[in-house]
């Protein structure tokens, strides 16, 4: 029975279910409300009855004072009789104190037990003056509940009748409203959905309301629009992708686990030497002959790989065309799952890489050849580097020899030529002292002495240029002399500053540093247009540092190095020879700073 009820309930349509729910709901609410109303009515009527009884008793207790006091039974009975016709009155009884009943009036109704409301009030006479009230009797009011009960019954019937009528009207109105607002729209929606399901994507449902069903209809219409658009897009997409597949250069195929091709595009057929794709799939499916390009073992291997890795990427295979020609192909594939969740097809993309394979082989030959050439070149470079090293050593050696020769020449000139010139000067002075004063010879002698002086200065300059004498007294002295000489010749103030103890350097690095500073100052004099030059020598624990700074016009270091600036190259070469770090910082109009940092500590050989 329960199953049948469940089935029958489920088989009801929405309208009937809604109506059923409404009926149950309204019946429950109406029933409850009616019961509450009846109960409320009952309580209020019984309360009102009690109130009336109380009021009547109170009223009689007041109004009967004088009649009872005067024992005016007619007046008492008249008063009681005045209210006796009230159908609720069961009995009025007036008793006199010490006497008993003096008047009683009974109603027309038979009074059952428990159906009465009884109120008893004392009748008290208030005598004039200050005498206390005197109880002269009692009024007993008995009202029957029967009338109230009848009224309650009538009210109950009326309430239930009204509720039933309301329920019926509500049911009818709801039936019609639901039919109009729910059933009809749902039917229209069903028909429309059926049409769409039947392929009529142009079917639309008329939206007649703004409620949920109206919005549902609008959304279904929108869904139909979207479905139509999607279908068109799908068709377009299918056409496009079919075209892509059909026109693809790569072979696209679908391979089952038996090694049969389920799908293949023309490129696949062409790749494998078939006339069209159908031959490839039909032959594989119907003939039963082993014409499939994928052997069973290969198919098993491919599916195994797919199961393991989830995809096949860039796998190169050698297949046979229909005419038996071997071809190299590259396979990219992924698995297609069946509805049961197991791997069913291999969806692959096959690219003919035979030509590429051949090209690769050629490329490998070329690479081997190239590698051979490269190794030869490397060997040559090593040779070149060794040659360059030797060249640099030779250059250093030559530089050393040149410096030594300069030194020797300078010493020779200074020692020999200088002494000779000094002796000649002394001889001329002695000779002049012997010549008559004011003679022409004296004049000539004077001119000769000046020539000798000039020659001596020239010799000194030559010697200084060949090798400054000051260098023999240390780097600091040499640089100080160089700065002073620069200032003297160029008229540009050059300030030399040695902040630390004078470094004790061997002659080659000291000479190299001197030459670098000399070349720097020469460049300042020639190009910088500076008004101030500072030369700083610092000897710290970190090493020896020489800085040449000017406030001239500066220059572009990169372009200067790229050009034929032999001065900079010479400075760099000298620095390299003494394993020093040379930095040139300059920008146009920002001056130039040349920093030479000698990292290696040289120990000056002790002079004997």
């Amino acid at each position, binding site marked *: 029975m329960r199953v049948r009820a469940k089935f029958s309930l489920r088989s009801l349509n929405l309208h009937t279910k809604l109506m059923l729910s409404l009926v149950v709901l309204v019946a429950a609410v109406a029933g409850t409300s009616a019961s509450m109303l009846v109960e409320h009515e009952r309580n209020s009527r019984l309360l009102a009855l009690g109130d009336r009884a109380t009021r009547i008793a109170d009223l009689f207790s007041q109004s009967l004072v004088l009649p009872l006091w005067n024992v005016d*039974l*007619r007046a008492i009975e008249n008063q009681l009789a005045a209210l006796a016709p009230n159908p609720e009155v069961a009995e009025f009884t007036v008793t*006199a104190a010490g006497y008993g009943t003096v008047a009683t009036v009974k109603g027309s109704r038979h009074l059952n037990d428990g159906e009465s409301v009884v109120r008893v009030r004392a009748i008290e006479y208030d005598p004039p003056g200050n005498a206390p009230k005197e109880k002269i009797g009692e009024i007993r009011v008995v009202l029957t509940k029967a009338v109230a009960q009848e009224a309650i019954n009538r009210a109950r019937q009326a309430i239930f009748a009204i509720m039933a009528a309301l329920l019926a009207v509500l049911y009818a109105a709801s039936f019609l409203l639901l039919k109009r607002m729910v059933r009809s729209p749902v039917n229209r929606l069903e028909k429309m959905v059926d049409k769409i399901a039947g392929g009529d994507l142009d079917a639309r449902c008329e939206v007649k309301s703004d409620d949920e069903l109206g919005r549902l209809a609008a959304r279904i219409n929108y869904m139909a629009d979207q479905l139509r658009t999607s279908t068109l897009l799908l068709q377009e997409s299918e056409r496009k992708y079919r075209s892509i597949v059909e026109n693809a250069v790569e072979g696209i195929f679908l391979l089952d686990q038996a090694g049969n091709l389920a799908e293949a595009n023309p490129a696949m057929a062409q790749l494998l030497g078939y006339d069209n794709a159908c031959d490839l799939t039909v032959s594989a499916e119907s003939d039963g002959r082993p014409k499939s390009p994928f052997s069973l073992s290969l198919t098993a291997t491919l599916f195994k790989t797919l199961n393991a890795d989830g995809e096949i990427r860039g796998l190169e295979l050698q297949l046979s065309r229909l005419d038996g020609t071997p071809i190299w192909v590259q396979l990219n594939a992924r698995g297609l799952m069946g509805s049961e969740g197991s791997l069913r097809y291999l969806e692959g993309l096959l690219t003919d890489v035979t030509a590429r394979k051949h090209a690769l082989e050629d490329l490998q030959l070329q690479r081997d050849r190239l590698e051979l050439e490269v190794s030869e070149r490397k060997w040559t470079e090593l040779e070149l580097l060794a040659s360059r090293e030797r060249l640099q050593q030779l250059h250093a050696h030559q530089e050393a020899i040149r410096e030594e020769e300069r030194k020797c020449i300078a010493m020779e000139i200074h020692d020999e030529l200088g002494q000779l010139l000094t002796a000649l000067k002394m001889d001329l002075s002695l000779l002049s002292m012997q010549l008559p004063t004011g003679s022409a010879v004296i004049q000539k002698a004077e001119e000769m002495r000046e020539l000798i002086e000039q020659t001596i200065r020239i010799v000194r300059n030559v010697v200084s240029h060949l090798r400054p004498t000051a260098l023999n007294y240390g780097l600091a002295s040499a640089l100080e002399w160089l700065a002073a000489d620069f200032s003297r010749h160029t008229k540009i103030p050059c300030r030399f500053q040695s902040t630390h103890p004078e470094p004790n350097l061997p002659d080659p690095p000291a000479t190299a540093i001197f030459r670098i500073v000399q070349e720097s100052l020469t460049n300042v004099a020639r190009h910088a247009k500076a008004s101030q030059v500072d030369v700083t020598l610092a000897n710290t624990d970190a090493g020896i540092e020489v800085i040449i700074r000017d406030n001239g016009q500066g220059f572009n270091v990169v372009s200067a190095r790229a050009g034929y600036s032999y001065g900079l190259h010479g400075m760099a070469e000298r620095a390299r020879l003494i394993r020093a770090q040379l930095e040139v910082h300059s920008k146009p109009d920002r001056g130039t700073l040349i920093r030479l940092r000698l990292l290696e500590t040289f120990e000056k050989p002790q002079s004997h």
Partner: protein
Amino acid sequence: MLRAGAYAGLVNMIHSTHAFERRPHVVFLNPGESAERGTGQHWQLVSSFMGMAAMTFNMQLEVLYAERDHLLMQRQAEEVARRSFPPDYVIIVNEKMAAQQMLKVLAHSPSKILVIHNDLTSEQRQYVGNEREKISNWIGTLTANAELGGFRLMKFLYQRFGRREVNVIGITGDPNTPVSLERAAGVATFLNQTANGRICQLVFSDWSRADSHQKARVLLARYPEANVMWAANDTMALGALDAVKLNNAHVLVGGMGALKEALESVIHGGLAGIVAGDYFVGAWAMVLLYDYHWGKDFAKHGGPRLKLDYLGIIERTNARRFADVVFRRIEAFDVRPYSKHLNQREGSYDFNLKHLLKTTTRSL
């Protein structure tokens, strides 16, 4: 009732016998019942003694009973006033304060009006004036001194009780009838003069025996200490006596008015005493009208408003004799000694019952 009919027939006979004579025509608007219906025979007796007096004085008496319905009495007065041949005299009673309206109705009538038994109250007199003033044909008022009657009754009961402490329950008539108040006032006057007399309660009744009986029962229950009870008429006194008997109470009961049953009760030791003489008021009115008609204006003997002392106590000792006079030998009732036209006597009218008793005794 038979007796009333006999009197009426007698009146008619007198009328036919002296048809040729000019007889004064008197109409009495009797507020009581033409037949006894529980309120006693008082008004019937009044008519009877009036009839006897009319016969004695050769006057035409016409009695119209209002059956205790003052509205009917009013209509009867209007009817009399509209008559083509109006009576010479109309006797009315201020029962339930109806006299004021009746006087207004009858004021335009040529009939002379005499008010008896219940006087107009002072409030009523403020509207209608006094006798022979605004209403000129209102020639006089005759009432018994009811207050004196009440005084005498209570004095008698007090003395009968042995002058011990008395707790009195009073049952008087309706409050709208002045005589009921006057009687109660007499009782109160006496008790006020008495140190050991106290009024438990005075109630108003409708003059009926049944109502008095019921009231007496309730009051006896309410005041167990009560030992004296009086009623404003004998019917009510008999009702109260019934209640006393029913309760087996030791209470003396006295009444006013000496109806036959009351007299018998007094004779048999029921009622302790009664004040008698009320129902002679009609006869005394006929005496006044006879004298007035024949030129002896009663106003010259006490004024137009006569309040006369003719009420006496009837107790066990004189009750039987009084009953004989009133009920057995009514034909012997002779009012001629009271007429000033027939007896050249100066001074005010004296309707003392002892003259009547003497007269009747002589005639017996």
